[in-house]
Structures are given as C-alpha cells and as structure tokens.
C-alpha cells in the first residue's frame, strides 16, 4: 500500500474511532449521566450487564469494527512516531512487520472473544 493511502486510512479510522469510542466511553464512563437522561446501562461492569451488551448483535459487530480500526490507527500512529526517530530502512521494515503481526494477532484474539461472548450460554 502507498504511504499516502495508508495515511488516509489512518485519518478515516480516527473518525470511526471518534464515533464508536465516544459511544463506548459514554456507556462505560458517563453511565450516571446517561441514566439521568433516561438511557444507558446501570452497573456497567457487572458480568450480567457486560454479557447483556455482548449478546447483542450491534455491540458484537461494533466491538469488532472498533477493535480493527483502533488497532490500525494506534499501531500506525506508533509506527509514525518510531519512524521519526531516524530508523534505518531495514529497521523500518522490521518495525512494520512486527506491528503488522501484533495487530493481526490482537485482532484475531479480540474478535474471537467478542464472538465467543456473543454465543456464550449461561448455565
């Protein structure tokens, strides 16, 4: 991928994160405010509340999308910072490869967790 294309995906991913992470932050950390406004979830960190969200298709899909775009945005941002430290081209390729493998690995792991929680059956 051309560097300029990767950069524009990085910006686009940031905009998606702004929306999805904004929603996530509001649900998880502005819960009292949302409840006062007549929406949101009470006791957001209890297992029953977490599972109630995880078992909704909207949350499962949005978690996976957020996971993917946040990993891309975060790791590409880290790569940009590291590249500004005057790395030699061989080291640049190594950094790219390591971040790519880490990103794909974390995406597979996190997606598996989101799907497993979506399919989770209470005993």
């Amino acid at each position: 991928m051309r560097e300029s294309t990767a950069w524009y995906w990085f910006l686009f991913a940031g905009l998606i994160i702004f929306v999805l992470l904004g929603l996530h932050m509001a649900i998880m950390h502005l819960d009292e405010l949302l409840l006062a406004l007549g929406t949101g979830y009470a006791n957001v960190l209890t297992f029953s509340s977490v599972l109630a969200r995880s078992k909704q298709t909207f949350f499962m899909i949005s978690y996976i999308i957020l996971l993917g775009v946040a990993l891309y945005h975060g790791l590409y941002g880290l790569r940009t910072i590291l590249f500004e430290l005057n790395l030699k081209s061989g080291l640049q390729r190594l950094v790219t490869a390591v971040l790519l493998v880490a990103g794909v690995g974390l995406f597979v792991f996190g997606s598996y967790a989101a799907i497993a929680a979506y399919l989770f059956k209470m005993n």
Partner: protein
Amino acid sequence: MEQKQGYRHKLGLLGWLSGGRYGIERYAYSLHRLCGLGILTYFIMHIFVTATRAHGAVAWDGAMASVTGTVFKLGEFLVFGAFAFHGLNGIRLVLTELGIFLGKPKMPDYPYKQSTLRQRPVLLVVMVLAAILVLIGGWDFFVQ
C-alpha cells in the same frame, strides 16, 4: 566529496519536548502523541482483560478484581481525559489536513497572517470542549 547529511530536519524525541519558536500548536502536538501512546498502552491491556468475559462470570469477576483500586480508577480517568483531548484535537487535525479553517490562499499583504493563526481559535475550542468533557467525566468517575 559527497557528504552524507542524513535527515537533519528530524528532531526525534527532542522535537517533542520543546516547542521552540513554534506556538501552542507544537505543545498540542506533543500532548496529542503522549495521549495517543497512553491510550494505545491501555487499549492493548484492555483487549486481554475484557476477553475474559468469554470465559464466564468467575473469570470476569477475577479480572475485574485485579484492576480495581485508586490507581486503576485514576488511570482510567486519565485514559478518558486523553481520549477527550486526542479525539477532539484529532478532528481539528483532520480539518487542517483538508485545508479547512486555514483560509484561502492569497497574495501576502502586510501585516501577514499565518494559516496557523487563522486556525488557532479551533484549537482553543478543542481545549475548552475537552476540558468540559473531563469535568463531566470527573463528576461521573469520582462524585457519583
């Protein structure tokens, strides 16, 4: 004889620490990166902690018990504040990237007005909005 110059314009970490003759935008840049790195660190830990929900209530409660206490609560609040600033400032950066709020190109007339100064009010709006979100978040985190 050809002399290898390298990238002398790249300051590396030193560029983070000093804004030099640049304005407040340079410090916003440093803070943006610092917040980004903080959020990324938290995010990677968050993936592993939240994955325990797939293994049932006992695993989830165990994971939650390991991340409670004042330090974690303060850390989560810092992540919330970092997201507020990084997200809003990121919107400003995207607008700047697209040339919005920089003004139209025109012949330079004295007194010159830089594009940086034209978009500076946007940075101030970003800082105020981020501060409001941090205050609301602080109320929800610590008062409620």
